């Protein structure tokens, strides 16, 4: 690990300052791990985080900076620039790392995703011959369900499914059917249940993810997958800045004392394979956030040290404001099968995959998170770039059309005077 950290650290001075000057946001890459001699990336994560946030992050703040390049890169709107700069950044990092050799210690340890997959698929593994068939199909450009390589399956969104929740959504995507409910609570530090002022957006959300033994005989595996899913969602939201969830009061109702805590329940009704799981959950989460209503508060500050009283006046309390979450991202999973990149693999294609690239992309087409995991053969940086490019196409398209639908829904939502509990509820069909 030391060897890995060492290389990048050299970079901190030179580019960093410039990038930070460029815009107030700098970007860091945390734990670029498992790079072996072939200089292929085994697994890397891009987490974007505002400097202010990461500065308070403490120990993690001095992690490698070399993708300060990426900061400028990833903010550039143009995809081609993205690819160039990203490639540059990666190869540069690789060069640095290659210089300090023997980072290949971790050979044989595969990425978390693969491990999960293997465990999940033990019940119904794919035989060698079937894998051959899948691969040959992909080589021929025709996937088993007739899609071409970069086609994605349908995505279906429904909002306002949980009347009692502040916001909720349900998404069908591939084999996955996931339900997300958002509850808003005012958190303050006096409660002392370990509640801390959120420093990043991810901290303002706390997830509860449930996967009822869907993945395997015993629900423990479900728990593992849930863990992974939560980590990735949190990572994505940590990357966003506060403005991504925008409404009248800020998330911090009172700086360092009271804030909105969004507790998010993700209930996976059915799933199979993990690619569609993350994508569907992210989509559902975004839809749920977008449909979330936050009551308007009036704060009566008493003396300074005591917490202010919370009032909600009748009128506005009855017509809460909608959370503006347009800037939150959606994710797309791509995987590499026999050296060929396919988008949105289904459960069986996952089993044939030798690398996964999960890209979180927001409406402006900026990468908000990138998770790469592969088997021991590693993955070419170029294909990461290609993946990001492809993901950009799909995600932007998705986001636009999802927003079209949501806007309609939410319009009629907003001019409903009564809170949404009057709806028929979950699975309501108007």
């Amino acid at each position: 690990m030391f060897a890995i950290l060492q290389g990048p650290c050299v970079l901190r001075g030179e580019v960093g300052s410039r990038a930070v000057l460029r815009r107030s946001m700098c970007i860091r890459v945390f734990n670029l791990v498992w790079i072996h001699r072939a200089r292929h990336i085994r697994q890397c994560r891009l987490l974007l985080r505002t400097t202010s946030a990461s500065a308070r992050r403490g120990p993690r703040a001095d992690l490698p900076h070399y993708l300060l390049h990426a900061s400028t890169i990833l903010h550039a709107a143009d995809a081609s620039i993205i690819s160039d700069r990203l490639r540059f950044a990666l190869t540069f990092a690789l060069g640095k790392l290659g210089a300090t050799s023997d980072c290949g210690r971790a050979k044989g340890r595969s990425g978390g995703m693969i491990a999960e997959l293997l465990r999940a698929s033990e019940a119904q593994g794919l035989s060698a011959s079937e894998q051959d068939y899948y691969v040959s199909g992909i080589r021929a450009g025709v996937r088993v369900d007739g899609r071409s390589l970069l086609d994605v399956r349908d995505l279906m969104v429904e909002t306002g499914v949980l009347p009692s929740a502040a916001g909720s959504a349900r998404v069908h995507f591939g084999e996955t059917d996931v339900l997300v409910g958002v509850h808003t609570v005012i958190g303050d530090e006096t409660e002392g249940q370990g509640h801390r002022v959120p420093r990043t957006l991810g901290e303002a959300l706390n997830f509860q993810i449930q996967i009822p033994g869907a993945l395997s005989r015993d629900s423990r595996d479900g728990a593992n997958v849930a863990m992974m899913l939560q980590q990735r969602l949190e990572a994505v939201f940590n990357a966003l800045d506060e403005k991504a969830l925008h409404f009248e009061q800020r998330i911090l109702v009172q700086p360092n004392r009271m804030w909105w805590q969004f507790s998010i329940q993700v209930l996976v009704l059915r799933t199979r394979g993990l690619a569609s799981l993350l994508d569907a959950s992210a989509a559902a989460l975004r839809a749920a956030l977008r449909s979330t209503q936050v009551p308007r508060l009036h704060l009566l500050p008493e003396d300074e040290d005591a917490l202010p009283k919370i009032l909600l006046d009748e009128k506005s309390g009855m017509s809460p404001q909608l959370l503006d979450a347009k800037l939150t991202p959606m994710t797309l999973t791509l995987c590499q099968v026999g050296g060929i990149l396919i988008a949105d693999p289904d459960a069986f294609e996952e089993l044939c995959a030798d690398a996964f690239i999960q890209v979180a992309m927001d409406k402006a087409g900026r990468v908000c998170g990138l998770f790469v995991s592969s088997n021991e053969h590693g993955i070419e940086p170029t294909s990461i770039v290609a993946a990001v490019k492809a993901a950009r196409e799909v995600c932007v398209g998705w986001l636009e059309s999802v927003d079209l639908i949501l806007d309609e829904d939410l319009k009629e939502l907003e001019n409903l005077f009564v809170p949404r509990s009057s709806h028929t509820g979950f699975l309501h069909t108007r």
Partner: protein
Amino acid sequence: MAASESRVARAHVARLEHVSGTGSYAGPGTLLLGKRRYEGGSEEPHDLVLPGNDLFADGTYVRGHGTHVRNGRLVSSQAGTVLTVNRLVTVRPFRSRYVPEVGDVVVGRVLQVAGKRWLVDINAVQEASLLLSAITLPLGEQRKRTYEDELNMRAFFAEGDPISAEVQEIRSDASIALHTRSNKFGALRNGVLLQVSPSLIARAKKHYVRLSLGVSAILGTNGYIWLSPHDLETAQNEDKTKKAGSRSDAPLSEERYITPLSVGPEAHLRVARARNAILLLNARSIPIDPVSISLVCEECARQGVDVKDMTRREVASRIADTVQTQLSAASHLAERPLRA
């Protein structure tokens, strides 16, 4: 390419309540107390019984699956439709696990190699077991099972291998024994396995079928279906795929790792079409047999539906309805289920 994707992506995001699988039968106010309304339910399903419903008062009926006797009365223990085959009364549930019968042709997947036997998943309540003594060994004839055979059982079937077999016996503790003692059974390769509701696949004479669109299929009674391309063009391809599709003898160890013949894109497309057709039928719970499959494919061809769009719901419903009408027109031999 990229442009098309974005189009695709944009086109395919839809609002759920219009298309949700449940929406069609959980319409607004459909299930409120008292009033009962069925969307599109053409005929009121009278022959539906729930567990605990009395079927027959007199004991003159033989109790079959899905029924039990409660103080002298025959009572349903399933939610489903009542069928009476002259004294035998059975209740067939909507959907259930596969209930094996001796002689069924099943497609399964090897889960585990245990001592002297394989455990096979055939979508039944229990894992079926395939004894080493119940397969034909490489050198066909009934030679003694040697210790070597026991050692390299994985050479015959390894974990995850899809196989086709026949149900040999069902023991008292409901455990299932398979056998592959015929040259049509054995390991399957160079194709795809898909799963449908077992209730949709009738027990027929032929479960190894050649679909008109150049795909050979094994319709397992247990709802597992094996599809493999089978080319019409070249005879050379022909027999190779046939060999691959439904192998005559059990595989040899080295044979398992032969890279399969690379089938061309159009072959893949054919299989994909068949697959989607079957899934479409399954989604609309229409019985799956060569006729219905080819009907769907023709219908798609007529309406010019792209293969990858076949499972899209609105398309599916459109096609399924026409196919259903054609089918119901065709099949008059639907015995009227008996009323409770």
